[in-house]
């Protein structure tokens, strides 16, 4: 295993991950760089951290940067890692925002965005397939899945209301049973 990285290393490494993942695959790139290339974590620790980052609120990649930053340098480490991860993408997002709101009425831009929006929705739907394949086994999880989709997506109930109603039930369902029951 390598030495403890400096704060600058953290920022530069997460900047590298952000740029490498241009167009997606941020998770895959994170593993490639953090585990394979830098040797900062073992695979097991990486997977456990990714699971935690998925469950907790917040963007998974930002959360992972916080986790790795904290691991090496506490709170300053978290700030450097997140800063490295987001600085260039935020600058790009600002530039895109500027151009979009200047030119969105141009018909050609409208056409491009209409097509791109269809693909962006597809990217979201494919996440449903990829993540649902593992956890939607059985009537109860499917019921939870459908219930929150209808409440939040179709009926447009506020998210806080949906979660206050369903999260306690879901956690109670997920509570490990005694050995003989499982």
């Amino acid at each position: 295993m390598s030495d403890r990285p400096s704060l600058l290393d953290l920022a530069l490494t997460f900047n590298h991950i952000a740029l490498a993942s241009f167009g997606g695959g941020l998770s895959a790139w994170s593993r490639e760089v953090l585990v394979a290339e830098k040797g900062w974590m073992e695979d097991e620790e990486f997977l456990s951290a990714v699971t935690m980052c998925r469950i907790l609120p917040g963007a998974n990649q930002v959360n992972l940067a916080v986790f790795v930053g904290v691991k090496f340098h506490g709170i300053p480490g978290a700030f450097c890692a997140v800063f490295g991860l987001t600085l260039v993408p935020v600058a790009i997002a600002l530039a895109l925002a500027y151009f979009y709101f200047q030119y969105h009425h141009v018909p050609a831009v409208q056409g491009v965005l209409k097509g791109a929006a269809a693909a962006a929705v597809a990217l979201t739907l494919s996440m449903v397939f990829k993540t649902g394949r593992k956890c939607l086994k059985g009537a109860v999880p499917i019921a939870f899945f459908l219930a929150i989709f209808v409440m939040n997506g179709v009926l447009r109930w506020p998210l806080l209301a949906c979660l206050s109603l369903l999260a306690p039930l879901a956690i109670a369902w997920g509570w490990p049973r005694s050995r003989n029951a499982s």
Partner: protein
Amino acid sequence: MNLRTLTQILLLFSSLSILSIGGGNTVLPEMHRKTVADYHWLTDKQFADVFAISQAAPGPSILIVTILGYKAAGVAGALLATIAMMLPAGMLVYLVSRVWEKAKESPVRKAIEKGLAPLTVGLILASGWVMSRAADHDWRAYILTAVCTALFSTTKINPIILVAAAGLVGYLGWV
């Protein structure tokens, strides 16, 4: 730009930060409801466009909030929205990461891992649904979405290539 808008940005995105269980995409319907219907920062169609742009751009997908903040209150709004969306969730990760490994066998961790998973998937589907409605898709766009979904689900194609290709299809006026 004014103080009231900045306050709305701060309160909205910091609360969404804490509610975004399972990742930034799960709060898109809520983000859409507040920024379009409540605050009128942008139109339905613009929200769909901004979503498409943020999905194609590099970096964490929550950077849609940078663009929304920019529309509401310029560069200051963009930076405030970005920080507000990351800080509360980041603090929670900081707290939990200190006990996570030790809690490996705890029933609380197992229950949360197992129980919240189907809710997260449901919320992501809700995002896809709301975004598709916001973009005011017609049948041709739905076909394009279906084709792209199949490709994303079955191949390892780089998303930016497919988003760009779909953009080209749109540019040619086929959707």
